[in-house]
């Protein structure tokens, strides 16, 4: 496997010399996400394999090209899971892609995001330098937290080689409750429940239905379900998988899909098109044709930001524009890790 790293290093150096863009890509399951792909493809899938996994340490270290499905199957065999419940968006989705895109699934509000579980990372930067940050222990404050900086950076700061992740035990019991509530009622209910010690690990509101997943010990889940009320949903596993993978009906159709991450208590957003809510109100999906500047303005007023998640024509920039001073810091970091500006050019912002 070290031969692959050597080969990549040479490719990075050659690209840096010629300043030709390099497109870091696993299976391509998230090609649709972010800015358009540019440059020659560097396929990460050959660099795969689980490097270390000991269930009693709650830590797994794996190469970036390892399939998410492989990681999850190995964890499941030992009664464990990825706490951030990542969407795959395709059968071949890789761990490196999940970390680079920084996308978390339904459990995010309860358990944390991708970045919350990253303990250490090894990258090749834009000079072809092999760099290791963080480690494989739960607590580590030596040096700047560059590992987490790589999460969601869309590959613009380095090629992820290996990632060490904290993993979690699978809950003993999980069940899903369904409530008939309109959006305003649901927002109120989700936020009020989240401020009490219920073992709620996912929420989803669409139309007039609120689905709430409770997970934990059998005793805890049953007692919470009794208190919360609602009707129990059969085949709840499929419901949350379809939501996570955007296979649910709501996500079908060719209209642009906007992802708005907002303060969880923000009232119903004044935007046309159907809305689907997750994360206790913190995540709002909007499906429909709307002017980008209107969506961004609405997101900003709700203490958040908007991402043009899926669209046939991405004429507007995908991510919420940054204030100029913050963009200056971003450009500085890009320069620090990829001075030639070759890695995943334009996938996050045109300037990076």
């Amino acid at each position, binding site marked *: 496997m070290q031969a692959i790293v050597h080969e990549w290093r040479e490719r990075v150096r050659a690209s840096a010399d010629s300043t030709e863009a390099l497109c870091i890509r696993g299976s391509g399951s998230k090609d649709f996400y972010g800015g358009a792909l540019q440059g020659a493809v560097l396929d990460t899938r050959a660099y795969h394999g689980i490097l270390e996994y000991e269930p009693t340490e709650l830590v797994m270290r794996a190469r970036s090209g390892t399939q998410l499905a492989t990681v999850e199957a190995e964890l499941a065999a030992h009664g464990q899971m990825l706490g951030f419940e990542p969407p795959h968006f395709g059968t071949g989705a890789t761990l490196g892609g999940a970390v680079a895109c920084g996308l978390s699934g339904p459990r995010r509000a309860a358990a944390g995001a991708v970045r919350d579980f990253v303990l250490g990372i090894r990258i090749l930067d834009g000079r072809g330098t092999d760099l290791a940050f963080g480690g494989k*222990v739960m*607590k580590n404050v030596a040096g700047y937290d560059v590992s987490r900086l790589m999460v969601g950076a869309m590959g613009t700061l380095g090629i992820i080689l290996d990632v060490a992740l904290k993993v979690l035990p699978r809950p003993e019991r999980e069940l899903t409750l369904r409530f008939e509530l309109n959006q305003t009622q649901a927002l109120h209910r989700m936020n009020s429940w989240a401020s009490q010690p219920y073992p709620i690990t996912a929420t989803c509101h669409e139309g007039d239905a609120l689905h709430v997943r409770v997970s934990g010990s059998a005793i805890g889940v049953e*007692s919470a379900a009794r208190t919360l009320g609602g009707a129990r949903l059969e085949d709840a596993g499929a419901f949350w998988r379809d939501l996570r993978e955007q296979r649910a009906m709501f996500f079908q159709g060719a209209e642009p899909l906007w992802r708005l991450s907002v303060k969880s208590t923000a009232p119903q957003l004044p935007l046309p098109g159907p809305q689907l809510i997750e994360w206790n109100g913190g995540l709002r999906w909007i499906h429909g044709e709307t002017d980008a500047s209107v969506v961004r303005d609405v997101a900003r007023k709700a203490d958040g930001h908007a991402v043009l998640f899926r669209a046939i024509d991405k004429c507007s920039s995908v991510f919420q524009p940054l204030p100029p001073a913050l963009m200056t810091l971003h450009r500085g970091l890009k320069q620090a890790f990829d001075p030639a500006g070759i890695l995943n050019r334009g996938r996050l912002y045109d300037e990076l």
Partner: protein
Amino acid sequence: MQAHAPSLAGNVRSALLAELLSFLPSAAVLFDEEDLRPYECDGLSAYRALPAVAVLPSTETEVRKILSLCQRLGVPVVARGAGTGLSGGALPHAGGVLLSLARFMRILELDPIARIARVQPGVRNLAISDAASRYGLYYAPDPSSQIACSIGGNVAENSGGVHCLKYGLTVHNILRLRLCTIDGEVHEIGGHALDSPGYDLLALITGSEGLLGVITEITVKLLPKPDTARCVLAAFGSVAEAGEAVAAVIGAGIVPAGLEMMDKAATAAVEPFVNAGYPLDAAAILLCESDGTTDEVAAEIDRIAAIMRSTGATDIRVSRDEAERLRFWSGRKAAFPAVGRISPDYYCMDGTIPRKHLAQVLTGIARLEKKYRLRCANVFHAGDGNLHPLILYDANQPGELERCEAFGADILRLCIDAGGTITGEHGVGIEKIDQMCEQFAEPALEAFHRVKQVFDPHRLLNPDKAVPTLHRCAELGRMHVHRGEERFADLPRF
């Protein structure tokens, strides 16, 4: 010690003072030696330096002006919260500006429905939980100094506590920062949503030890308080068995709210001090806490006790009420001062290791005790692998301090060799700057310097801390405590 460090030229010093006094009230600008003395060190009192000036701004605008002034005059700045840190992170730069955030002590907003609190950096950690408690909420990270340490310092150090395995570190429990960079610019980092656009600067800033900017406001997450908590106290005939019990608990799918270990030397030191009821014949004891609803906790405690029994516990006690739970914890929380009573001096280490190497590392420490002819008591955040060996020594005995320092460096080497880290929660500061060279390869250190360059090109913020320069990796530092004369001796340290 000189009243004013010589490194600041007289004309620069007078220009600095004149400009500071043009926008700060005179009471907020301290430059007499007796006024500066309280700022000469933090919790790591072996290192002391007098700043040229200490400033106590009360507004963000004042902080911006101070920073841009320092940049213009090329004067180093060290930010300081409560000064309780253990790695010298708030040690002033001789001849520089010490920027105290002590006047930023307001809780600006507490939103119980959105479960957030917007606070100023000087607010004490525990004050946030106190303010949130009426809503049944709390702020989870609980460093041992939480009655005194400030939230700004917690962010700078990415502080932990005894509940990290389940509830995370500071980085997992904050949402937004206002960060003032050395050019006087204010950045909003993160947001009140669960994520924000662009790079994860929130993570980068957290734990950056004041090298990248000065934090002027923090939004923290608040969590609902669990209904109840109970604790299992288990005794083991060997450290290895206790280590196996820890692995077995985690392997059984339990993430305890707290999981702590103490070895025989540590229990022997604390028991006469606090009468926690620890079995003194045990080679190691474990404290394992469960929190949640009453039923849930009862079931989990039963499982934990059964696992402890099956892994060879010689004695198991379960707290029957809150008073007993707190008594179980009292010994653990009193470990540092108790050790301070039995030894003229001690030196606290802060390595983290993968848990499975616990027995190996502790055996290594026992071997080093013989080599250096010094005793070492071990307390351990067993759940997350964070080890606090306390080396006992007497600074008045010739050669002991040097032996102790060499002992400590060897312990950190053991941690690195076991795949761990030199600091789990106390930070690098000035103390472990040398060991950074052992943990990180040169290219990684260069990358850190490049990150620093982006935020602070003239290296004026907290210079010479946290990340060693490549050509100068030689300084050593230690947490020295002489005859219990620790600064903040009344603070629990665990």
